[in-house]
């Protein structure tokens, strides 16, 4: 599938800040499932530098703006060709050992309820069928946490989301990481884009899902929000131990201003006229 993406993030500061530093993870991953045709990240008035590919295979760039800064506009535009690999992250170069993804963060720490959810999900699945175990965990998370925007916040943990029984893709992903790690399966947070067409079935254009390490195969994506594995509608950008670690933009502003953020993501199937967009505030 050939996808055209436009992703604009605007930060407004009032009063203006003395300076802003951001770390960007905004460029698609390199693996057999996707090939960038063209890609551009633009920030007006910014100094860019300190760019590198990290141990997890993500392309990272650093952006600084000197004050007074009242607005930062990060524009991502690009076209990418995707292939359906049934969620398998084939041909991705990285050096982080999978076992390092067994260590939970505050967001992905499994409490009693998450552990119980994991063991119920795996009760009837053979010990050595790693793939079936991963699917069972993903299905259990989808069933336990209903997709419902506005019920959780950025700082909501997996345990809190499960207790509420509601959440968005971030909460689903944290919960899947938690139950996987509790079942001794390395797991991580993945960010990217999702082209959901006009059927209304899929959620969130700027999306997140989990990858689980399956012995004998490698990293495989699981999207509990849409109860599937990533296919050619998905664009993988970066990964981390949790939402914060994998965040497309991490920033610090120096000053006392109040920050407001606006995100607009549009994804189009370059070969079909329909488009969809979404604005988050």
């Amino acid at each position, binding site marked *: 599938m050939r996808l055209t993406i436009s992703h604009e993030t605007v930060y407004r500061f009032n009063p203006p800040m003395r*300076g802003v*530093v*951001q*770390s960007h993870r905004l460029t698609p991953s390199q693996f057999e499932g996707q090939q960038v045709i063209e890609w551009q990240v633009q920030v007006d008035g910014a*100094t*860019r*530098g*300190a*760019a*590198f590919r*990290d*141990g*997890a295979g993500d392309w*990272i*760039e*650093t952006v*600084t703006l000197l004050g007074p800064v009242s607005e930062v506009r990060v524009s991502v535009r690009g076209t990418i060709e995707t292939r359906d690999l049934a969620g398998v992250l084939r041909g991705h170069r*990285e*050096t*982080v*050992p999978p*076992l*390092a*993804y*067994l*260590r939970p963060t505050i967001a992905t720490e499994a409490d009693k309820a998450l552990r119980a959810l994991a063991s119920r999900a795996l009760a009837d699945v053979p010990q050595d069928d790693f793939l079936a175990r991963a699917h069972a965990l993903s299905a259990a998370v989808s069933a336990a946490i209903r997709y419902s925007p506005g019920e959780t916040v950025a700082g909501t943990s997996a345990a809190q989301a499960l207790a509420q029984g509601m959440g968005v893709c971030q909460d689903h992903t944290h919960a899947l990481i938690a139950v996987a790690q509790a079942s001794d399966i390395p797991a991580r947070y993945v960010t990217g884009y999702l082209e959901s067409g006009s059927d209304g079935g899929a959620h969130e254009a700027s999306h997140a899902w989990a990858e689980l390490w399956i012995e004998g195969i490698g990293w495989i994506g699981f999207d509990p929000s849409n109860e599937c594995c990533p296919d050619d509608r998905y664009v993988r950008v970066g990964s981390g*131990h949790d939402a*914060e670690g994998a965040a497309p933009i*991490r*920033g*610090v502003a120096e000053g006392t201003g109040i920050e407001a953020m606006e995100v607009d993501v549009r994804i189009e199937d370059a070969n079909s006229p329909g488009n969809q967009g979404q604005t988050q505030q």
Partner: protein
Amino acid sequence: MFDADAVRAPYSGLLDWSRNMPQELRSLKQNEAEALFRRIGITFAVYGEGGSPDRLIPFDMFPRVFQADEWARLERGVKQRAKALNAFLVDVYGRGEIVKAGRIPARLVYQNEAYETAVCGIVPSKGVYAHIVGIDLVRTGPDEFFVLEDNCRTPSGVSYMLENREIMMRMFPGLFQENRIAPVENYPALLRRTLASVAPAKCDGTPRVVILTPGHFNSAYYEHSFLADMMGVELVEGADLFVEGDFCWMRTTEGPKKVDVIYRRIDDAFIDPLCFRPDSMLGVPGLMNVYRSGGVNICSAPGAGVADDKAIYTYVPEMIRFYLGEAPILKNVPTWQCTKPEDCKYVLEHLDELVVKEVHGSGGYGMLVGPRSDKATIELFAQKIREKPWNYIAQPTLALSTCPTFVEEGIAPRHVDLRPYCLVGENIDLVPGGLTRVALTEGSLVVNSSQGGGVKDTWVMAE
């Protein structure tokens, strides 16, 4: 200090010196030493204890002495260990050969909370992660030294090594004329040379080195400013540095100056809010990106802590064999890991004879010295171990060597340990000396300054 009931050779002259010192002169000198420490401002803030944060560490005037040949062996052992620890760090953040070879359990390394995935794949300048390695040693026999623990992050206390010497030389110049004592004063120059030698490849002039401190509330702030003075480099806090483009810069009255090497005395978690703890106010936003793209070096490297973890410690002799193909010169203390069920069972059955420590503990807090504890304390520890076995390791209670020490009644033996500071850059250097800590309470084996320990000057006799 005693060898078959006789005082060991290096001490005999000093014993005469101390015995011939009149009581009045002794108290005069003791007061003078204390006044000097106060004047230069070297104090030690004790965590978790009430009272003044500016308490002096007691200074004992009786020096601890090594003969040249004893030291030569110790030096080889310390350098060997520092080399192996660095080889291990480059390996576990790279190809992980030691893990693949099955010489150390993968989970112990990769699930360790000090293992930092943000630096996977990075080989720092000259292949060095731990630039200052402080190795805590005890002596149990004439030729027998045991390593208690390795410190690969930012070992503190080196300012005491330098100040103890300085004060001894001021108070007893005669001793330094009668004895040929190897100098330690060149440590700051060596440290600066070591740091400059690991400047990143992108640095094309004379490297600018700075010390990054969390600020004056930190208990080791004195040492940070002392070392900056002695090395002739800037002492900075996070707010003095900023990132722009490919580099890290220091704000100065003459405009920004590029910084090439940061000797940081803040923990990994606080280095950069964009990479680690987002609430850190002590670090520099974006610094890790500049580090990871080769624009600046950070010493010790983020992630170095995985090598000095108390559970990893058990495998250091294995690292020496694996990376260097040598037999370890310094011994490890046999260690039981409570996370292993059979070890845990043994520990619980022998608590009255063991020393129990927290895996990530330091400063002598939260530890149990079995032979010197009452039943209730032992029972309390047994409970803690049962609740969190992975949090504890245990070691036998060692017969630590003693050193003559001034006490109320005259001179008496007190237990000591030693922390030499090994510098690793382009070269590996060890100044002949270190920090000797002494347990001032009779019979005590805990030398931590936070637990009533004192310090002594450490002499290495020149050939």
